[in-house]
């Protein structure tokens, strides 16, 4: 069968032997999807609480938001934006494969497209958020 022959070539890939975590690209995106997902929901748990503080008035809310006047926190915020973007773009790839199984033929292209789109969108975002981070760290004035 043709599909069987296809699998043969996949199984013969060099990465199947002796690597840390039998890494096809798809397995790394699988891990990344899981890690970013867990990171986002844990942040969300905290974020609902800090936003809810607005119900206790401006003094309380503004004090909570002053947490963000710290370059370390801003760096984590950049990480959060990256996590959301990756999870979103990779989620679209997952849905394409799930709902149009014939797209599996273009798996490699879809995978590199996902990573490419993610990196391309993170460049301007890092530029924009990075300026604030460096200002808070005292590097930029």
């Amino acid at each position, binding site marked *: 069968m043709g599909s069987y022959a296809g699998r043969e070539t996949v199984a013969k890939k060099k990465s199947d032997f002796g690597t840390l975590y*039998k890494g*096809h690209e798809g*397995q790394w995106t*699988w891990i990344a999807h899981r890690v970013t997902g867990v990171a986002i929901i844990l942040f969300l748990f905290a974020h609902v609480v800090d936003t809810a503080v607005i*119900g206790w008035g401006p003094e309380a809310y503004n004090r909570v938001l002053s947490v963000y006047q710290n370059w370390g926190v801003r760096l984590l*915020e950049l990480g959060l*934006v990256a996590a959301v973007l990756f999870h979103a773009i990779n989620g679209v790839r997952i849905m394409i*494969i799930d709902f149009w199984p014939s797209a599996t033929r273009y798996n490699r292209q879809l995978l590199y497209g996902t990573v490419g789109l993610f990196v391309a969108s993170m460049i301007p975002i890092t530029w924009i958020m990075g300026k*604030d981070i460096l200002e808070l760290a005292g590097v930029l004035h």
Partner: protein
Amino acid sequence: MATTAERQSPPGQPDGSASYRGGRERPAGGLELWSWLFMRISGIVLLFLAVGHVLIMHVFGGGVSRVDFKFVELRWQSPFWRTWDWMLLSLALIHGVNGLRSVTMDYVTKPGWRFAVNMVFYVITFVLFFLGTVIVFTFNPANFPQT
């Protein structure tokens, strides 16, 4: 219905074929199929709600630097943003807790522990959903006249 000891999302089949897939296998039916479908449908909506929220609040227009009580007061004058935020709250929480359930199914194998861990996540989610819903719909800046 998947048995409790079964892994939900294997990282790859022994022959390597599933390593090209990103998502969980489509369940055959029942509640698990609905949960699988929900993840994908809420995912599409969150693509706009969550990515939009992150870009508006954290990246463009000054990012989080310009967010304060006054900013949210103005923003929540519009029912559009209150609805957006409430939908984001609900969908992100349910999507997230359903994802956490997949993770505990994979890594927490003892049924008692699995139940306990899932319960903790469900309770946190319910409490936060309740808290967030109350705040989004009852927030009234007139309660704080000195601003």
